[in-house]
């Protein structure tokens, strides 16, 4: 089914007649299994980028036997071009708290944490007050659950869930080997649900409006809507909630400046789509998935500079734990510099592409595995800009 661009208002909707607390009260009256079935039925997939079905994550954690379980909200938004979680935290934090509390009820957790990147510490003052009020409300209602804030300290890799747990445990933010997955052994090695900020708000809203209304949006593979962070060469940068499954061309028509030559879908670790492929590219899990970052480049931009910037980013943000990523990122960066200077022949780019293949197989976490996405999509589509 062909979709077109459609703006929706679910995440930021303020409904005076039905507050998030009212949704919470109503939802906690329902059997936990029923809530999980609703979430699975809704088709909601994680909005942080990886896209794991949220209902299944909750179900797996619910099925684990453990006295202690945790709910964690991943607010370590660090992907270049993404700023939607900051807006959500700022404008509708209560919906996040409610999502976490519903999750705690489903899986049987008594503690929840919001791990927010240090760059957003300026939000803490007002958020802490709102959280204190919310926790007091939970205590008053005799709901055995409390939420706490944790701050990051400027490490992109801590957005990776197992690195985030390590950081919360006071260690270097180095990703763990998987399995075990967080649903079995997450924070403090206990069963943990870790969801992105936006995902938790959608769980609240699905409990509010029912899975049918959510499912009616989007496509079979990509149900619902998603918040997009639009930046770069656009007259109207900002955040927009759009139905999933639209062709990229529609997006460019709406947000481009009339001269868009490439869109980086999914941030530095995402894919670069050139103008000639705008029409055939679907934004969603069946096409190119995104954590929300959409960066628009017009024809005045050098794609060499764009790729160079991304590779510098990864070289700095690689945790350095595994060799394929630590050395791979450095070599890719040095490699394109050498080709540009003429120290290496243009065919050297093909050797570098092979290196990204190795990184995809051998790197320990998503960071190293996905460096090939921007590298290959930019080199393949803008080879002449990299060489000359």
């Amino acid at each position, binding site marked *: 089914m062909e979709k077109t661009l459609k703006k929706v208002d679910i995440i930021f909707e303020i409904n005076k007649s039905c507050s998030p607390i009212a949704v919470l009260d109503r939802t906690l009256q329902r059997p936990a299994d029923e809530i999980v079935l609703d979430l699975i039925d809704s088709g909601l997939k994680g909005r942080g980028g990886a896209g794991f079905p949220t209902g299944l994550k909750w179900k797996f954690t619910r099925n684990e036997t453990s006295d202690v379980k945790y709910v964690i909200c991943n607010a370590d938004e660090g992907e270049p071009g993404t700023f939607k979680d900051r807006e959500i935290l700022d404008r509708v934090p209560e919906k996040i708290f409610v999502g976490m509390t519903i999750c705690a009820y489903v899986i049987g957790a008594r503690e929840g944490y919001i791990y927010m990147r240090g760059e957003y510490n300026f939000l803490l003052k007002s958020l802490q007050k709102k959280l204190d009020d919310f926790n007091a409300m939970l205590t008053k209602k005799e709901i055995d659950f409390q939420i706490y804030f944790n701050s*990051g300290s400027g490490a992109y890799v801590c957005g990776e869930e197992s690195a985030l747990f390590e950081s919360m445990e006071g260690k270097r933010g180095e990703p763990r080997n998987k399995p075990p997955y967080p649903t079995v052994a997450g924070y403090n090695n206990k069963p943990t649900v870790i969801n992105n900020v936006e995902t938790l708000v959608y769980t609240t809203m699905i409990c509010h409006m029912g899975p049918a209304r959510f499912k009616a949006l989007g496509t079979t593979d990509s149900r619902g809507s998603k918040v997009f962070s*639009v930046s770069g060469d656009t007259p109207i940068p900002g955040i927009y909630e759009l139905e999933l499954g639209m062709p990229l061309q529609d997006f460019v028509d709406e947000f481009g400046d009339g001269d868009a030559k490439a869109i980086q879908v999914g941030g530095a670790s995402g894919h670069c789509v050139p103008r000639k492929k705008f029409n055939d590219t679907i934004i969603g899990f069946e096409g190119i998935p995104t954590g929300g970052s959409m960066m628009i480049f017009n024809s005045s931009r050098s794609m060499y500079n764009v790729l160079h910037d991304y590779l510098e980013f990864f070289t700095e943000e690689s945790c350095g734990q595994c060799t394929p990523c630590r050395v791979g990122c450095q070599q890719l960066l040095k490699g394109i510099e050498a080709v540009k200077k003429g120290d290496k022949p243009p065919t050297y780019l093909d050797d570098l592409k092979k290196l990204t293949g190795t990184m995809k197989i051998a790197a320990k976490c998503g960071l190293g595995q996905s460096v090939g996405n921007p590298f290959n999509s930019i080199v393949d589509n803008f080879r002449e800009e990299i060489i000359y």
Partner: protein
Amino acid sequence: MSTTQLMVKDLVEKNGRTRNSLMPVLQGIVQQEKFLSEEAMLSVAEELDISAAEVYSTASFYTFLDTVPRGKNIIRVCKTITCHMKGKDEIINALCNALKIKVGETTHDNQFTLLTANCLGWCHKGPVMLINDDIYPDLTVQKALEIIGTYAKKPQ
């Protein structure tokens, strides 16, 4: 006990004497002293009863947990692609000239340290800089210089 030791003791008591408190404790020290001195890290190790190497191992991983002395105000200008496209270089150059330092350096009066940072999450309002915990989006050269001016005038 030195003031640093007292501060560490205080932070540990507030956050709990467990390994899981290491990050909030280190963040608390940086909040007050702007960086982690050897004395501070050693006293954290002692208070939490873990090896000093473990403390340094964690501290040295995080960009915001500096282990070298920093000025009273830490400026971090975003250098990632969208801010790059919107002119972060002009902002950085203007700040370098005004403060008479290079990126990575601290002014002689110890008022400012100038650093760059990876994506700060304000791509729709670049260029952007963070001074300590405060964010300044939609920068122009003039705006950036005025902001620095207000910090320079602040009583310490």
